[in-house]
């Protein structure tokens, strides 16, 4: 009975839900992130540099640093920590304490830790976990511009400028981005065997609409399959780059700009022609049976994928190399990866993984030095990323390719969370040269005209909360094609307006215009 829970306010309800949402709702985001990360597993083969540390460790006071990280709990963190501390003690006179919090609990835990002003030094932060902007707004992190100048030569040298632009809030840097694939490339994945059987060439697919003949064939010939995967979390937001748009305040918050529009005119994506044509197409697909009947309430897409029932799906984000992309299903049927856009640099895709320095830290400069060392010292970085050789992983060739040992007790899988993922030892099965390709892709891609802008939601937070309830309701229905858009779309737009979407957009425009002046 409900009475038995003690802290039964909305706060606690929220908390519980955030945990579930962390795993259910947040999956989309994580999915992409680790897909990115997997691309980075391959690394360059340069030997680790062994220059002396920038500052003489003999002159440094001994300090303890605490670092909050977000991944599945590992049973053997202690031995990795001990091994790292041998190096850190010698180079920085630092004793590091790793606090690994599991996926479901991280947001909640960091929220109370920050709110209670508890002492810690570093924390993983992003736009999808331990919300970066929220934390900056509430004063959880310190600005890093000066510290970086002084203590982080390697990081400054490694990261391209647009990375720093993306992290800026009111002109200041509050977190250090981890280096990985920073771009967003939309596209679709489809089963190779089926495409070949039906004579559908991946090159022939230039637009989402071009997928229809494939779906029709699947529906006709493989009635047990799901031609196109779609679920309740919304499909349009995954295709923003495909439609040439970039989000202003968040994927499902009204307000986008066109990637080609240098005047930075903010529009409501849900009122756009693009949105209308997308949901109309989805309705068409839904009616023809290409989409699961219960897509609007479907949260777990894994079951279908594993069972080999998924014939095609939105790819989320593609990395720099196309071969070696993961198959969809358990039977490991190969797939075609169809890129529908060029890689584009977005603020949202860059700030997907960063490290912030806590305002409660007593030794922020040492925390920055630690991160700099992780960017520089490959051995240290790989120790944190993969654990101890022979215990947690083994090397399988001379190129430092490694295989993770499943029973080792340390397989955090967070290479993309702890520094320069391009320095990670390549894992078995990864494509050689991925790291170079990633670097090249990051440096050569077109940045969004909005790159470097960050939205302060405070003036419209009531509106954003209200709009959030409306989008959560309608996106699932409209973007899965489960309802008639002629009726529901106007209703959706009307409710958005009542909830204050126009006010949000006006505020976005105001802040963007002000930002343009300073640029």
């Amino acid at each position: 009975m409900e009475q038995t829970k003690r802290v039964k306010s909305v706060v606690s309800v929220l908390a519980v839900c955030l945990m579930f949402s962390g795993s259910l709702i947040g999956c989309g985001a994580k999915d992409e992130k680790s897909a990115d990360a997997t691309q980075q597993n391959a690394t360059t083969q340069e030997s680790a540099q062994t220059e002396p540390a920038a500052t003489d460790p003999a002159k440094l006071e001994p300090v303890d640093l605490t670092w909050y990280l977000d991944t599945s709990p590992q049973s053997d963190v202690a031995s990795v920590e001990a091994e790292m501390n041998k190096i850190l003690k010698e180079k920085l006179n630092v004793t590091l304490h790793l606090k690994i919090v599991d996926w479901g609990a991280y947001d909640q835990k960091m929220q109370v830790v920050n709110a209670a002003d508890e002492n810690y030094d570093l924390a993983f932060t992003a736009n999808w976990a331990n919300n970066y902007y929220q934390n900056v707004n509430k004063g959880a992190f310190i600005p890093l511009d000066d510290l970086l100048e002084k203590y982080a030569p390697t990081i400054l040298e490694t990261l391209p400028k647009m990375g720093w632009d993306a992290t800026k809030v009111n002109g200041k840097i509050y977190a250090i981005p981890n280096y990985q694939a920073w771009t967003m490339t939309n596209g679709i994945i489809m089963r190779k065997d089926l495409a070949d059987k039906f004579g559908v060439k991946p090159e022939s697919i230039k637009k989402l609409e071009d997928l229809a003949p494939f779906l029709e064939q699947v529906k006709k010939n493989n009635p047990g399959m799901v031609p196109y995967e779609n679920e309740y979390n919304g499909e349009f937001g995954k295709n923003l780059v495909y439609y040439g748009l970039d989000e202003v305040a968040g994927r499902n918050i009204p307000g986008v700009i066109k990637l080609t529009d240098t005047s930075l005119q903010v529009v409501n994506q849900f009122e756009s022609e693009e949105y209308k044509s997308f949901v109309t197409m989805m309705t068409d697909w839904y009616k023809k049976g290409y989409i699961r009947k219960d897509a609007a309430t479907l949260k777990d897409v894994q079951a279908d994928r594993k069972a080999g029932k998924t014939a095609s799906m939105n790819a989320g984000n593609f990395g720099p190399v196309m071969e070696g992309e993961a198959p969809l299903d358990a039977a490991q049927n190969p797939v075609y990866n169809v890129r529908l856009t060029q890689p584009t640099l977005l603020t949202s895709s860059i700030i997907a993984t960063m490290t912030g320095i806590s305002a409660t830290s007593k030794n922020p400069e040492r925390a920055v030095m630690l991160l700099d060392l992780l960017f520089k010292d490959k051995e240290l970085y790989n120790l944190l990323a993969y654990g101890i050789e022979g215990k947690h992983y083994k090397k399988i060739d001379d190129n430092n390719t490694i295989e993770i040992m499943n029973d080792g007790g340390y397989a955090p899988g967070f290479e993309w969370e702890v520094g320069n993922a391009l320095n990670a030892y390549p894992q078995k099965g990864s494509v050689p040269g991925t790291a170079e390709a990633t670097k090249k892709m990051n440096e050569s891609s077109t940045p969004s005209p909005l790159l470097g802008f960050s939205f302060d939601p405070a003036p419209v937070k009531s509106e954003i909360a209200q709009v959030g309830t409306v989008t959560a309701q309608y996106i699932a229905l409209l973007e899965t094609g489960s309802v008639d858009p002629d009726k529901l779309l106007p209703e959706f737009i009307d409710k958005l307006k009542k909830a204050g979407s126009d006010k949000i957009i006006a505020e976005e425009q105001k802040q963007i215009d002000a930002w343009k002046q300073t640029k």
Partner: protein
Amino acid sequence: MSYQTKIHNSQPLANMNVKKKNTFWREFLRHKGLLALAAPGLLFVLIFNYAPMLGLVLAFKDFNFRKGIWGSDWVGLDNFKFFFTSDAAWQVTRNTIFLNFIFILLTNVVAIAFALMLFELSRRAVKLFQTTLFFPYFLSWVVVSYVTYALLNPQMGVINQLLTQFGFHEVNWYMEAKYWPVILSLAYLWKNVGYSTLIFYTGLMSIDKSLYEAASIDGASKWQQVRSISIPLLSPLITLITLLQVGKIFYSDFGMFYFLTADSGALYATTDVIDTYVFRALRVSGDTSMATAIGLYQSLVGFVLVVTVNYIVRRFNKDNAIF
């Protein structure tokens, strides 16, 4: 009849008389022994319940980690705005009250009936049934939602297969709002009736056995015994439980509303309650101040309701009121 006189004997020495202001403390001192018994419990309440209540000021502040709870800026009623200016405020408030009202009524009536029925059975049977009635209580809503999904899903749900077999039309359960008050009520009953039954059964057990013996000798039938002994003696407990539940009427069992309905947007007309609405609203920002504000609103309304109902109860029967 003897059992009635006994009931009267147990009445307190009513209307001791009206004394001066400091009566409360004098009473306290007079009952030092009782006070000592209550002291550890009161201490826990003070520390774990009352001390954090100071944090309610967050509802009127823009919480900033650096400035802390006390130092954060006052923002008046800004944190309440997102809810009260919303189009959906009335709908979710209505749903919350209506559904919880049904739940309270249904669960208590059924649980009292169950308890009275169990009371007639042998101890072995009671043990068995009580245990089975309790099984659902131990399954989380997430797990239950998997089973209900297996029953209701539009692809190959058991219910739809049965419907078509008997010549009815299939129902797309997760798109049709009108069925859900019934589905939710049944699910709530199913999950909680074991818990409530146990409460009322315990209440029955504490009734003096000699009352029933006396009634039997007087030739009262079982039904008469229920009506004139069990129900009247149980009524303070029933009133108490109902009052406590009324206090919580603005809160909902979030797990049920979120997981059982698969959070289907098409069902919000009948299933969206304050807790689910606020969850959606604050999912992105996780704003502590706004969440505190709504919690305060829910508590306040529940509080006013209980105080009112308690007052009414008091007018009828002083003993049944909880304070």
